[in-house]
């Protein structure tokens, strides 16, 4: 039903609203309960019962007191002051909670401003059949991560025991748009947004990061991060810390570097093996970057996200020297164009080895890479709308985006390429597989028969392998799925597991065209993701917003704000007083062994559904009864409340004797809570301490209940022991389910 065709009907409907109106509204009562940027669902003037109308059928436009089971209904929403032109039904979600506490998502079908009061919008949806005849229930609308007030509706029959939310008041039809007092938006009230930004765009806040963002603003900070950094010699630089120095080496570890000690074999063997034949140096480098690289925070964060989309496993890659060459590709193209990222990933020897393209020939084709580039790196298995939702055909089912036949044709494209080991390869070393130069082609091994790709595109027989490859990658790149598919994955990695289709659509539009006619501009995509109203704004109240912190983010987010430094007594020479970055020993037990994902499906599946819900929660794929208690145990190790020891990730001595020591940590890592300890000395009630932890870790979102629980625990510790009081509070925040979820 189009907005125009329904206009007369809507006018009739709005004339009914006179009954609910009264003069001189004061919305301050709503403001007291709701953040000022939350949508408001209209209720009757004298109760919290929603104004509900029937948009269809004979009784169209008439108010409904009891909604038939499964009916399509309309409710009215206001306080959407800066609504974007493109924000329609897909920008909103709605749900109903029944008296038993079950929450049913509703499919929003249409959304439009009302003709008489353009500041009031009608929102139509169908009640899910599963909801049944539940009687009174509470309805909510969410928008940009913000929850509305909850209003009462009656489904099937009137009555039932469901209680209104505490503090809930009538929200009657307003006769003018709500104007917020702008002065309230200045200064501290928005610090929650800044903290969330630093967790989305980087690895968490530090004092310096916070100050810089506050001074520059989000946009300018992003522009600065996106700018190419140069070394002294004018060479582009993609990391702050130097990449691990170990070059690719021989495939079979020699006896003096095989990790097996023998009498003739001195101690450094183990160090050699760990540095060259494991991901150890890369893990440490990564964590040092994450902790300390202020001018590459965004690139590191995006590259880390890309490494979880374009997955290459360390176990199969075997050598740090091989893997780091792959990471350089992700680093370089993190702010580049997706088309070149796709090219360099495809021709990367590490990927060629991991997904077998390096061994796929005309004579013995291997379809592994062809399948995964389509499924995981670009198009996905289902045809998508531009907002990332699956296209459905008339029976309501998904439409596969390709078939085995498509995979067979792409398999032919990717045949013939292998490690560049000829004299023309600049980084060739005798006896060592070349994991530095892009793969090269042996034309004799390339299947040069005709290929039929997406959209009926035909690559004629007899093309060169490079022609085939370029045209096939273009064919993939221009598939309409790529924008929404990649945009959604990046949003899930950085912002929220369940973005609204409207959010995905806004980012996908930028992916498709950055405004200057360029497709695949990742700089523009990253900006669009991080500056979107669904990512920004004050404390989010949509119950489904956010994502579980994966272990690497959990670890960096509980250390970075607290001045992570080398553990006491370290040989400062190695680390200059800073952490050595040996933090994978903390993330591995949480099922995230950095750069060693178990398969091409990453540490966790991106389509993982949280058990018992319909919500995606990728990171919950590795959060289980088996790992849940390891998080508090890690917090206890870093700052033990029940002890006066320094705490932290310990220094682990170099290899001695015959004991292998894969966790060699010359300097260790610890955090410094003395700033917070001063707070609890100055204010023995603990309130100031809790405020600070709430601000810096939870972005000001701590609930009164949680606050009082922590206050009670602080009070239980003698005021003469501010160290224990501080650690107790830090422990309780860092271990809380509320902090595990980045919202």
């Amino acid at each position, binding site marked *: 039903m189009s907005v125009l065709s329904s206009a007369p009907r809507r006018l009739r409907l709005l004339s009914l609203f006179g009954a609910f109106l009264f003069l001189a509204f004061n919305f301050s009562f709503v403001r007291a309960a709701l953040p000022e940027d939350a949508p408001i669902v209209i209720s009757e003037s004298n109760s919290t019962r929603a104004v509900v109308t029937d948009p269809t059928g004979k009784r169209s436009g008439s108010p409904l007191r009891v909604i038939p089971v499964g009916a399509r209904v309309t409710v009215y929403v206001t306080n959407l002051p800066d609504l974007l032109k493109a924000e329609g039904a897909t920008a909103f979600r709605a749900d109903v909670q029944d008296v038993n506490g079950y929450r049913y998502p509703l499919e929003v079908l249409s959304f439009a401003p009302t003709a008489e009061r353009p500041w009031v919008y009608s929102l139509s949806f169908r009640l899910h059949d599963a909801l049944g005849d539940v009687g009174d229930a509470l309805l909510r609308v969410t928008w940009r991560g913000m929850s509305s007030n909850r209003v009462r509706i009656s489904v099937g029959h009137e009555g039932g025991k469901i209680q209104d939310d505490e503090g809930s008041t009538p929200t009657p039809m307003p006769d003018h748009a709500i104007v917020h007092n702008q002065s309230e938006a200045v200064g501290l009230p928005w610090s929650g947004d800044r903290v969330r930004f630093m967790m989305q765009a980087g690895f968490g806040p530090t004092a310096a990061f916070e100050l810089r963002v506050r001074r520059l603003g989000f946009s300018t900070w992003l522009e600065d991060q996106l700018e190419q950094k140069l070394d002294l010699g004018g060479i582009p630089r993609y990391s702050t810390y130097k990449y691990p120095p170990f070059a690719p080496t021989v495939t079979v570890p020699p006896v003096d570097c095989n990790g097996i000690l023998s009498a003739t074999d001195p101690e450094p063997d183990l160090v050699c093996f760990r540095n060259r034949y494991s991901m150890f140096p890369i893990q440490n480098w990564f964590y040092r970057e994450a902790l300390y690289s202020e001018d590459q925070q965004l690139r590191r964060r995006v590259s880390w996200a890309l490494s979880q989309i374009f997955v290459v496993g360390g176990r199969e890659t075997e050598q740090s020297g091989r893997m780091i060459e792959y990471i350089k590709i992700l680093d370089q193209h993190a702010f580049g164009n997706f088309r070149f990222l796709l090219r360099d990933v495809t021709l990367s020897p590490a990927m060629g080895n991991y997904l077998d393209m390096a061994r796929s020939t005309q004579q013995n084709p291997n379809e*592994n890479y062809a399948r995964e580039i389509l499924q995981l790196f670009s198009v996905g298995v289902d045809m998508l709308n531009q907002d990332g939702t699956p296209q459905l055909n008339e029976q309501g089912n998904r439409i596969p985006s390709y078939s085995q036949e498509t995979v067979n044709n792409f398999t032919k494209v990717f045949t013939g390429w292998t490690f560049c080991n000829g004299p023309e390869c600049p980084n060739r070393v005798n006896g060592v597989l070349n994991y530095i130069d892009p793969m090269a082609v042996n034309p004799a091994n390339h299947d040069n028969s005709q290929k039929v790709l997406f959209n009926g595109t035909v690559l004629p027989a007899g093309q060169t392998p490079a022609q085939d490859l370029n045209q096939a990658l273009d064919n993939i790149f221009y598939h309409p799925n790529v924008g929404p598919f990649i945009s959604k994955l990046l949003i899930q990695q950085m912002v929220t597991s369940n973005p609204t289709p409207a959010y995905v659509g806004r980012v996908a539009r930028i992916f498709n065209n950055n405004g200057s006619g360029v497709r695949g501009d990742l700089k523009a995509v990253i900006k669009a993701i991080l500056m979107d109203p669904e990512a920004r704004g004050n404390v989010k109240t949509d119950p489904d917003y956010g994502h579980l912190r994966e272990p690497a983010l959990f670890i960096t987010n509980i250390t970075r704000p607290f001045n992570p430094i080398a553990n006491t007594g370290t040989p400062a020479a190695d680390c200059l007083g800073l952490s050595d970055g040996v933090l994978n020993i903390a993330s591995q037990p949480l099922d995230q062994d950095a750069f060693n994902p178990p398969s091409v499906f990453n540490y966790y599946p991106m389509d993982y*559904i949280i058990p*018992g819900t319909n919500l995606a929660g990728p990171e*919950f794929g590795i959060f289980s009864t088996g790992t849940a208690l390891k998080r508090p145990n890690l917090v206890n190790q870093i700052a033990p409340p029940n002890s006066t020891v320094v705490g932290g990730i310990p220094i682990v001595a170099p290899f001695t004797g015959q004991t292998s020591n894969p966790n060699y940590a010359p300097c260790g890592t610890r955090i410094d809570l003395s700033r917070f300890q001063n707070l609890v000395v100055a204010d023995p009630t603990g309130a100031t301490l809790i405020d600070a932890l709430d601000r810096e870790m939870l972005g000001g979102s701590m609930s009164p209940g949680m606050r009082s629980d922590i206050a009670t625990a602080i009070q*239980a510790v003698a005021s003469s022991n501010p160290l224990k009081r501080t650690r107790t509070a830090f422990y309780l925040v860092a271990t809380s389910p509320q902090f595990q*979820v980045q919202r």
Partner: protein
Amino acid sequence: MKKDRREFIKSSCKALSMVAAATQLRHFGAMSVLAQKAVEASPEVEYKALVCVFLEGGNDSNNVVVPNYTEGYAQYSAARSAQGLAIPQANLLPVTPPAMQGQVYGLHPALTDIRNLWNDGKVAVACNVGPLVRPITRAEYQSGAPRPYQLFSHSDQVEQFRTAISTFKSPTGWGGRLADRTAILNQGAAISMITSIAGTNVFNVGVNSQPLIVTPAPTPLNQVLTLTGYGTAADELARRAALDQIRTRDLDKTMVQATSVLTQQAVNVSVQLSQNPVLTVTFPNTTLGNQLAQVAKLMKFRTQLNLSRQIFFVRLTGFDTHTGQLNNQNNLLIQLNAALKAFYDETVAQGISSQVTTFTMSDFNRTFNPAGSGSNVGTDHAWGSHHFVMGGAVRGGDFYGRPTANGTFFPTLVTSGPDDADTRGRFIPSTSVEQYAGTLSKWYGLPDSDIPIAFPNSANFPTMDLGFMNPG
């Protein structure tokens, strides 16, 4: 192409609405998952357990169960010898399944103990199992008959094996749904009916059932879940009280609640898992051996935990042998053989060998036609594969399944032959995952009337009992 999609969708619609109704599209009810009733288990419920061993990556079962009679081996050899992927006939471990009318087959040479268990009647093979929408022939497949979504893709076919639903992505797995429907047999249990020693995955998730996840041995069972750092002073107790109290806050936020629920489960279980039972058998110190050792310990602790039914999930990864298959698969099967043997022996020692049924699942079989050659030789993704079922309640020493195009349970090993989906030997399953899982579920205690709920697509298949289990 368009036409077949429509047909495909029509047939899947029915199943979709059934499961949608079953799962009720609901979010967490407040702490509903935690609701545990403290009812004593009825003493007459006999203990039973299912143990799923997932061979992750897609096990090439073409090299696990091989025809050993002259013409059969010749067909096999013709397709695999030239690239160096055929196992020499002399190395095969001969078995003579009565269902194959006297024809001799051979197991992979690494499976010496499995073969002994076969000879003892404790191991059976379910032939040519894979996801299906309904039984189809090569001709039907090639003319576009309904087939599972995204055939030959790892993630999707893994999911289809784990959910036993191949028409759409199901949020619940068959292990989870089986637990839902048999929860009444486990009343008063101190921990979840389902335990995964290999992380979370959809197999273990039901509408109401959630798995317990524990780490493998050698971590002692009473240390797999512990909360460290607490003393006994008043301020320590206060901190612990606050930790527990915070877990009850902000449950209106879905992911906070999901985190709280899982953490609460871990805390509950950490109290329950107070012992570390000692096993009789020494398990191999391997990935799979350590997982199965932990399974065996939980079984030994079953009486204290008040468990009458248990479902376990363990996995062995590395079967995605696109290259280097001969060595890699051999090493994996050596590990599988030793771990299964130890586990079976331990169930004998615990006196529950007829109450525990162990079975394999895998992404898919691999192409009969090799990829690559020489030391690099491997195989690509395919479809129907053979699986082992082990235990005292198994009617061992035989093949089971549904007839392929040649009338037996075993496909015709010819590329582009009557059982090939295409040209590379992607054998069309004659037996569906539903039928395989259904047979196990029935033994486990799933009432016939609940079969359509646990397996919404079951009506598309002629039987849900393949006969490899003795009635229990």
